[in-house]
């Protein structure tokens, strides 16, 4: 009997869905709005996280050695640094490599090239590029280098960039918070609209609900089809939202990458297709079922 009832609840849900065609379409479209908001929230967070990670990638400490610093000494310091737990990675750029990089960078500038030729010798020192395991560890690495009494060191280049990085980080994390707040508020508004649309749709069925109750239907037999219908609305709304995100991310992907650097939204979309759909589907079903549950409650009191 439970199986029969379950089957009937499902069947009634689909019959209602079909016969209330316009109400179903309107409900789905409004739910699409709410789901798009939720999807944008996810996209925005992914984008900003990727950008933040990207920026952190670019941060390093460049340690410039004097021209006459012996390579042994440099390797000794590198060994000391490698022993520090705060250090993740060290790249050694020898004097010759530094010169090659410098020449490559200024190959179009005849003045610099000829000046170098005039000089006849390599004016550059070797460099150690240090990456910290954590953002906050740079400070202590710099302190270690500055207070270590290494005579061969020319200068430690972190301070110069530090202020810039700090600001960029602050801007990014602020925009993350603002973006999250704005999208969350919009998402909440969209949720309220979807919630009330469903409530209105069920309000028009209040008479039917009371009739069903009076001919002896149990609470769940009456409510079931509405919940299933809500889930079906959520399902279609999440599919439509997925279809909308396809051209949108395709269009926005390269532009966002140009602006933020790093991540292409479209490839995020295609690579996480199922996970993303599942997230939107979950949002859609939750809105549909929750709203229907709340909306039917008051008319079922009979």
């Amino acid at each position, binding site marked *: 009997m439970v199986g029969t*009832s379950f089957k009937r609840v499902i069947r009634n849900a689909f019959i209602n869905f079909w016969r209330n065609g316009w109400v179903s379409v309107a409900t789905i479209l409004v739910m699409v709005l709410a789901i798009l908001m939720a999807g944008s929230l996810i996209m925005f967070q992914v984008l900003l996280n990727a950008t933040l990670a990207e920026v952190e990638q670019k941060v390093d400490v460049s340690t410039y050695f004097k021209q006459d610093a012996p390579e042994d000494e440099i390797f000794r310091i590198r060994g000391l640094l490698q022993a520090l737990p705060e250090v993740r990675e060290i790249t050694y750029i020898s004097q010759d490599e530094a010169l090659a990089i410098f020449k490559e960078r200024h190959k179009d500038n005849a003045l610099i090239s000829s000046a170098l030729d005039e000089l006849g010798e390599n004016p550059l020192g070797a460099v150690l590029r240090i990456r910290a395991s954590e953002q906050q560890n740079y400070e202590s690495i710099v302190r270690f280098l500055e207070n270590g009494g290494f005579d061969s060191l020319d200068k430690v280049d972190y301070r110069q960039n530090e202020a810039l990085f700090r600001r960029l980080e602050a801007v990014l994390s602020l925009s993350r918070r603002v973006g999250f707040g704005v999208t969350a508020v919009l998402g909440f508004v969209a949720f309220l609209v979807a919630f009330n649309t469903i409530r209105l749709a069920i309000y028009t069925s209040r008479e*039917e609900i009371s*009739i*069903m109750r*009076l*001919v*002896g239907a*149990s*609470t769940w037999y009456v409510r079931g089809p509405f919940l299933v219908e809500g889930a079906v609305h959520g399902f279609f709304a999440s599919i439509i939202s997925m279809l909308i995100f396809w051209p949108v991310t395709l269009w926005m992907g390269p532009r966002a990458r140009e602006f933020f650097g790093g991540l292409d939204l479209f490839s995020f979309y295609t690579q996480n297709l199922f996970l993303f759909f599942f997230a939107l589907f979950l949002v859609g079903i939750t809105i549909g079922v929750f709203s229907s549950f709340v909306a039917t409650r008051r008319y079922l009191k*009979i």
Partner: protein
Amino acid sequence: MIYFDNVSKIYGGNSIAIEGVSFTVEPQEFVSVVGQSGSGKSTLIKLLLAEERPSAGSIYFQSLDVHNLSRSEIPFVRRKIGTVFQDFRLLPQKTAYENVAFALEASGREDDEIAADVPHVLDLVGLSDKMDFFPHELSGGQQQRVAIARALVNRPEVVIADEPTGNLDPLNTWEIIRLLGKINELGTTVILATHDKDIIDTIGKRVITLEDGKIVRDEKRGRYIL
């Protein structure tokens, strides 16, 4: 079978719908409840169906105190009571067949049973050729007959009709009353609430007269006197 024990219903503190009403309905009886609009007929029926709660007193249906039942037990009582309303109360999105079948589906009957019973009952009320019509495609009299078919299909012990002819023309009115009489002859208790003098005087069965929420007359072979 049905017993109202000193029942009162007061809406919103001081609007008295019915007051100190007691009566018994025996199995297979045909009882008409008459009174002007606002005399408490509909309230009486709503109380029996547990659509409303009494302010005082108890209502028994087959020795069950209707208002002591839990929310999940109420449907089982309602399945034993067929109801017909003035405004038909059909499900607008369902065909005549589906409206009648719904009552059976809700009580968990098997599909083959439903497929056998529904056409039979619709035939009984003379609508076997209108099974796939939606309510808005049927006349008032036809809609009311669908409602009666729905009330009958669960083989209820009692059929309650609340002003069933209020929205119908004289011809359809007599059709419906004749149908209710037939149902009663077949052994089902019928409670008919109406303010139609002609109907009451023609039926010639028990009449309970309500006035301002109180029973002023209860006669075995009553007439409509106000």
